[in-house]
């Protein structure tokens, strides 16, 4: 144990000064994102190891905490509540695998290793923008539906919010989630490998209701959804999807959308890659054919063998990942650990999740934690008694269609893994060393 670490022994969560000091020390030695309870950073783990070696000793007599002997902060007359200052390291982060030269067409990732339950807090929902985040006044925002319709219509936000609404829990995942880590290890944490993933309760109006209202002409088959941002981001959406379950969403997680998630209005395509849920939605145009836009030819397509590309691969296939323990974390010695993670499928419900502890040689079934919902994050749990030896842990999900989450090798046998490859739903292993260090083991 270094001198630096020794100074960590008298940790007091009640003292901001000491806490700040402790965090500064941790950040100097380990990644801040790996701080959490039993799966804590190396420095804390070292401190805990000392504690563990003296577990038979009695705990010191308790003292009354400062918070019990003083008045707290006043109720703010008007304001928006924020997380505890002690949670300040739980943030969305840009990728640090490669440097984007500008931050307008950019993205940030959800710290899913810190997410409890299936609902992502709004301030942590992953982002992907193509020309920055517009701040749109809802009083000036309109949606137009036109093209192959009997009567083109314009809807103000107050028009749209007068309709009855529906609220549904669904995940949203970017097609590029995991694109840095197919054939070699690039990312350290699960936030970097799987953080283009969020889940919440979405509230809005079914697209089908408004299509009914404008009246579709015979032959109508595809819809253009277009945003009011500086990229006018757009996607072609099949009419079947729009009539089936697509929503015009104005709220998520109990409040109006955040600007970075499409305020005041976005499309929402349950189970489909995130960019089809067009943000800042201003226009739906009805046609008989898809558009073949840049965003569905040069981008968001999958390299295939023989120089080909797969197009309109919009459903997100069944996938899972262990979030605890995951890359950058540190186990504190042999004993009980609850393996936790998320499973999801764009085609239905998660039916099972299996866990391997030996790199895929044998598997056992994890518990799914309810509610298990259609195209929604499902949490799984598995109690693991770590013997202290090296291990390679991973999860494998199955969905209600019978689809089994494949390995990267199985995906690579069908697709071409070259460049920035989308739609990585491969089984994702983490290595646990004998010293308890958890690292990315994709290759």
């Amino acid at each position: 144990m270094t001198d630096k670490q020794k100074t960590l022994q008298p940790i007091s969560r009640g003292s901001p000064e000491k806490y700040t000091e402790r965090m500064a020390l941790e950040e100097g030695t380990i990644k801040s994102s790996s701080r959490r309870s039993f799966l804590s950073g190396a420095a804390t783990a070292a401190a805990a190891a000392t504690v563990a070696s003296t577990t038979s000793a009695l705990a010191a007599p308790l003292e009354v905490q400062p918070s019990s002997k003083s008045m707290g902060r006043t109720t703010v007359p008007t304001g928006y509540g924020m997380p505890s200052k002690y949670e300040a390291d739980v943030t969305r982060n840009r990728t640090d695998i490669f440097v984007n030269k500008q931050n307008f067409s950019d993205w940030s990732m959800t710290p899913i290793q810190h997410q409890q339950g299936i609902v992502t807090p709004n301030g942590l929902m992953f982002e992907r923008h193509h020309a920055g985040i517009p701040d749109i006044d809802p009083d000036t925002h309109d949606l137009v539906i036109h093209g192959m319709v009997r009567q083109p219509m314009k809807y103000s936000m107050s028009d749209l919010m007068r309709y009855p609404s529906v609220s549904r829990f669904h995940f949203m995942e970017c097609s590029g989630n995991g694109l840095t880590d197919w054939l070699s290890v690039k990312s350290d944490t699960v936030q970097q490998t799987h953080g283009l993933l969020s889940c919440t309760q979405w509230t809005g109006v079914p697209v089908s209701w408004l299509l009914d209202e404008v009246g579709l002409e015979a032959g109508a088959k595809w819809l253009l959804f277009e945003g009011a941002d500086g990229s006018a981001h757009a996607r072609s959406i099949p009419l079947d999807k729009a009539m089936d379950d697509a929503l015009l969403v104005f709220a998520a997680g109990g409040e109006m959308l955040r600007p970075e998630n499409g305020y005041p209005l976005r499309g929402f395509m349950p189970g489909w890659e995130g960019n089809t849920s067009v943000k800042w939605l201003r226009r739906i145009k009805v046609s008989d054919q898809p558009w073949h836009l840049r965003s569905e030819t040069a981008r968001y397509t999958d390299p295939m063998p023989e120089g080909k590309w797969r197009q309109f691969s919009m459903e997100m296939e069944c996938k899972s990942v262990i979030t605890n323990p995951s890359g950058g974390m540190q186990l504190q010695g042999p004993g009980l650990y609850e393996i936790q993670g998320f499973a999801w499928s764009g085609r239905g419900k998660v039916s099972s999740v299996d866990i391997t502890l030996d790199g895929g040689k044998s598997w056992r079934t994890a518990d799914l934690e309810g509610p298990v919902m259609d195209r929604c994050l499902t949490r799984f749990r598995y109690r693991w008694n770590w013997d202290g030896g090296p291990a390679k842990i991973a999860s494998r999900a199955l969905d209600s269609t019978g689809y089994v989450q494949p390995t990267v090798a199985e995906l690579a046998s069908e697709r071409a893994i070259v460049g920035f490859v989308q739609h990585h739903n491969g089984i994702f292993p983490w290595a646990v060393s004998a010293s308890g260090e958890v690292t990315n083991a994709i290759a």
Partner: protein
Amino acid sequence: MQLHKIAIAGGLAFALSLGGALANSSKPAVSFGTPITEADVAAWDIDVQTPTGKGLPAGSGTAAQGKELFDAQCVACHGADAGGGSQYGSMVGGVGSFVTEKRRLTPGSMYPYAPILFDYIKRAMPMTAPQSLSNDEVYALTAYIYALNELVAEDAVLDAASLAAIEMPNRDGFIVDDRPDAAAVRCMDDCE
């Protein structure tokens, strides 16, 4: 007696709520929007459909005009001759690279249909002032990029008809989603 009443009331409420569930999940017989004419949507109606080129507006431009615009408004990010600049990589070449380990994606190598470039410039470029270019200017920039990619002659004039007529190298490069592809098996013991 009191309990019995509550049970009846509860049952009634349950029955009503079931009926209500149906009535409250279907499309309401209302319309809160305002009719608008296609003519009044014109300023927003910027999309171009391919392969037909439907939506390409009137107007035209040449590569020479495009180069002038490019050097004034695009070169800072995309570099001289669209060869790659401070922000983005080259927009020239790449044809034939898709069968190698390094696929080079450019408008010339990637787009299956030529009007896709017009649509994208029109809706999103230049990044600092999107939707600021006239249709003639977008045709000119499109002509310039495709001339650099040797897909049109340097003196070509692009308009709706000539742009849609360009045969792109990657025209047959796409297959429509045919997943699920990887067929994994749920092995539990002695796997691999």
